[in-house]
């Protein structure tokens, strides 16, 4: 009865509430969780039924940890067929276990066994082999002010139903300013730059979980599954863009695992977040059934397809301005060139050696005559000149 009619004194002290807000405070909340509930085996990868299997074993970490996860080394990792045949995996580098090129029998089931150096054993159930159908087509359309990339596939045998994709994007780009010269600290001279740090390739590996199923369809067909959207002015598009799509056939269990993992989203604590839930995977610790292991190991093959999108393929007008990420870069006249044969003045050394600015070119300001005045070195910040800070200047082997 006294729920609302608090004692008179307290009901009267309403203003306290407002001061109370002034004293509202957000403090770190570190739950009292035993450390043992934070250190579990994590298995990342799948058993490739037609090729090389590559599994990464690591450990989970406390939530506040800042270090990289520890890898699980010196484990004995084996793929075992229900028929008894076994395939060992070898470790290289530490924590990564690789098989030879396998060709597993789709009529059999296979399981993964892991014996850790610490003496614990983990394994999956015997899992069916899902043979991934070929990707019919990776294609794109220009729509909604951008490039939407789609994937199409089908399984005439109706055996797949659950599909998942990963992709890797690569694109050509240039830094803001091309560097034709460099300061050589040995000769203490400014010399022509031998390498190209202007043309680079950027790279991005998908992190989002992309999957779908065809349970509601009368055929096992995926048409126009949206994989990636690039806004019209994307920095990936101004020269040449490529995407490699990898497709995996999954069991329903694996699909559901990724679905929950997707919902336990990267983004926590906002109003439209899903309520999180426990998900472990299909690897069990058999030496301690209470200890979870994390990760889902499917047995399937991979099919993949790469496409390219050229600047010329795009409908954007010739003078269209793409985002570059270099918008704030400017080229500045830094130092006057020394007369031929003379050593560099100290200012040049400081600017290009000590302060780390890179020389882009030599020249003279517009309207002046270099034959009459001596030239100037132009330069800019490293990040504006050296594209390797945002990619690699080594042409990828696949690049066409």
């Amino acid at each position: 009865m006294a729920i609302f009619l608090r004692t008179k004194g307290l009901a009267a002290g309403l203003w306290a509430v407002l001061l109370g807000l002034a004293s509202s405070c957000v403090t770190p909340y570190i739950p009292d969780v035993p450390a043992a509930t934070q250190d579990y085996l994590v298995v990342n990868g799948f058993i490739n039924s037609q090729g090389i299997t590559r599994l990464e074993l690591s450990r989970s970490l406390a939530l506040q940890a800042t270090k990289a996860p520890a890898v699980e080394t010196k484990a004995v990792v084996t793929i075992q067929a229900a028929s008894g045949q076994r395939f060992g995996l070898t470790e290289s580098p530490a924590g990564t276990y690789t098989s030879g090129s396998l060709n597993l029998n789709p009529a059999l089931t296979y399981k993964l066994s892991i014996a850790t150096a610490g003496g614990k054993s983990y394994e999956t159930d015997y899992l069916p082999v899902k043979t991934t159908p070929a990707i019919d087509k990776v294609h794109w359309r220009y729509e909604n002010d951008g490039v939407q990339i789609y994937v199409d596939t089908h399984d005439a045998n109706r055996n797949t139903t659950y599909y998942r994709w990963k992709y890797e994007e690569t694109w050509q780009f240039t830094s803001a300013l091309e560097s034709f010269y460099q300061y050589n600290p040995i000769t203490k001279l400014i010399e022509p730059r031998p390498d190209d740090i202007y043309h680079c390739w950027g790279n991005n590996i998908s992190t989002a979980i992309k999957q779908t199923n065809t349970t509601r369809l009368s055929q096992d067909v995926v048409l126009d599954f949206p994989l990636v959207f690039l806004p019209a002015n994307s920095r990936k598009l101004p020269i040449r863009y490529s995407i490699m799509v990898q497709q995996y056939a999954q069991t329903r269990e694996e699909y559901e695992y990724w679905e929950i993992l997707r919902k336990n989203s990267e983004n926590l604590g906002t109003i439209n977040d899903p309520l999180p839930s426990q998900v472990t995977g299909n690897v069990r610790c058999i030496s301690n059934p209470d200890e979870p292991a994390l990760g889902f190991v499917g047995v399937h093959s991979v099919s993949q397809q790469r496409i390219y999108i050229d600047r010329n393929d795009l409908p954007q007008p010739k003078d269209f301005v793409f985002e570059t990420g270099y918008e704030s870069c400017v080229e500045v006249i830094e130092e006057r060139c020394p007369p031929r044969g003379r050593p560099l003045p100290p200012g040049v050394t400081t600017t290009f050696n000590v302060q780390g600015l890179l020389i882009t070119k030599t020249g003279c300001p517009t309207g002046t005559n270099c034959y009459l005045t001596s030239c100037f070195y132009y330069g800019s910040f490293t990040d504006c000149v050296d594209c390797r800070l945002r990619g690699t200047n080594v042409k990828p082997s696949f690049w066409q």
Partner: protein
Amino acid sequence: MSVRGGGTDQNLVLFNDATIYNPSHLFGFFSAFNPDMLKSVELYKSAVPARYGGRLASVLDIATRDGNKKAFGGAGGIGLLTSRLTLEGPLVKDKGSFLIGGRSSYSDWLLHRVPDASLRNSSAAFYDISTHVTYDLNDRNSFYVTGYYSRDRFRLASDTTYRYASIAASAKWKHNFSNKLYGVLTGTYSQYDYGFASARNPSTASDFAYRLAQKGVQADFSYYHSAQHTLDFGVSTLLYDIAPGSLTPAGAASLIVPDALQAEKALESALYVADRFEVSPRLSVYAGLRYSLFNALGPRLVNEYLPGASKTENTITGTRGYGSGQVLATYHGPEGRLSAKYMLTDNASVKASYNRMRQYIHQLSNTTTVSPIDSWKLSDTNIRPQVGDQVSVGYYRNFKHNTIETSVEAYYKVMRDFLDYKNGASLFLNQHIETDVVNAQGRAYGVEFLARKTTGKVNGWLSYTYSRSLARVNTGTEVVNGGRYYPSNYDKPHDVTLVSNYRFSQRFSVSLNFNYSTGRPLTLPLAKYYIDNTLRVYYSERNAYRVPDYYRADLAINMEGNHKAHKLAHSSWTLAVYNLTGRKNPYSVYFQSQNGQVNGYQLSIFGQPIPSLTYNFRF
């Protein structure tokens, strides 16, 4: 408020018979009702009269008092940031009266002067106003009109401003047919709306709004048959109209795409009859039967799902459209109410009761955020109503000429089809919420001990409750925690409450209140790991952990003014300290992922002792 392990949505709060959906100001720390306005507050949790229905756990029936029909008067209190005032008096001498009261916080100006920048960005304000008018036409007919409006707004160190408002109105006509039979015809209107506006980033500035409206008509009769039998009977109907959420862009620069959920409508009707039967001077029995009927109404598009499969977006087989007023789902059933009281001696008695309750409206709350929000959702084709059965027995014993009351009550409850969430449920603006919730089964049991001293220099009460509230989800298609029972969100096994007053003299008294309860269950992130170079979080089983225990002590000192008869106003001062020990009780616990770390935060709203001073007056 959770009663006997029930959800916060399982309590019916009636203000002169109009439903109040959010009976609190400012995070539930203060009642939404002005104590100066009230005549009685009756909480039914064991034996619920057949007249009430629609919630599983309890009914809180709040009645305003009638204004003074003879003379004008008033009461109030002045504090530093809020004040309250009540006025009353005759409208027509001896026939009609009014009572009007209001409370308000003044402004946020003090908060905005706090040096801490994040707190300067906080704000909170509320006000409420209520009024009650009575008119006695003659000996046989009386009329009553009540209105209530309350509004809250707050922002907690963030860029999002939350607001909510309640409206409740009722009009009653009481007619005495004879000296044995009277009836009350009541019309009610209730509205609850809330929303939040986010404005920090102009491109994502948005406004979210939710609104529930409820219109009701009921006729209640009471027939005094004889000294043995009093019959209560009646009929009622409620029309719900819910706009369950809309998101609109705020400002010209906003890129938010407008989105809205379909409106929901339904009719909830009931018939009841009950007999209060004095079997003997020692034994009295209450037997009631209520029959409730729920019709979910169009217009609405309803998803149809593959039978026998988990309801997901992938098992939608079609969509069926219903026209305006067309019935899309019907649920109904009897609700038996039975209780008996037997006097063992003049100062000892036992009571036993059985209740069945049916509930057609459910609350959805997202508790993983800094500011939890709650929406109400009607039962429909895909969401069944909740049904609860409770048995309870109690033993009551008074001592020392009834100045000390003691009791022990035990209860066992079975709850069917209350809503819990599927793993990974998404509640915000979900167009097909049935794919993310599941009708869960539950049971709750407990034992309540109470000792109360009603008079004397030292008075007050002390209670201890042991209770459990467990839920289980194990249908053919949905499983949570391996299909085992797990602690529900309202499982708080231990609760100790002490309310004590010590009167030093006629003019000076001190009260000390203390409350302890087990922290509520929580699903915790336990560890993080990387799959394909992406950070993932490993969570515990649902509700496997608990937030820290809650405890709070409050102290108040009352000083009455002198009691000279010819003084214009009677006054008192109250000096109170809320949360005397400065315990940082968690209001919310949430986690955020920041630069590869998953950090937990606890928001405490009253995390330090808060003194207050109020001047109270009455004239």
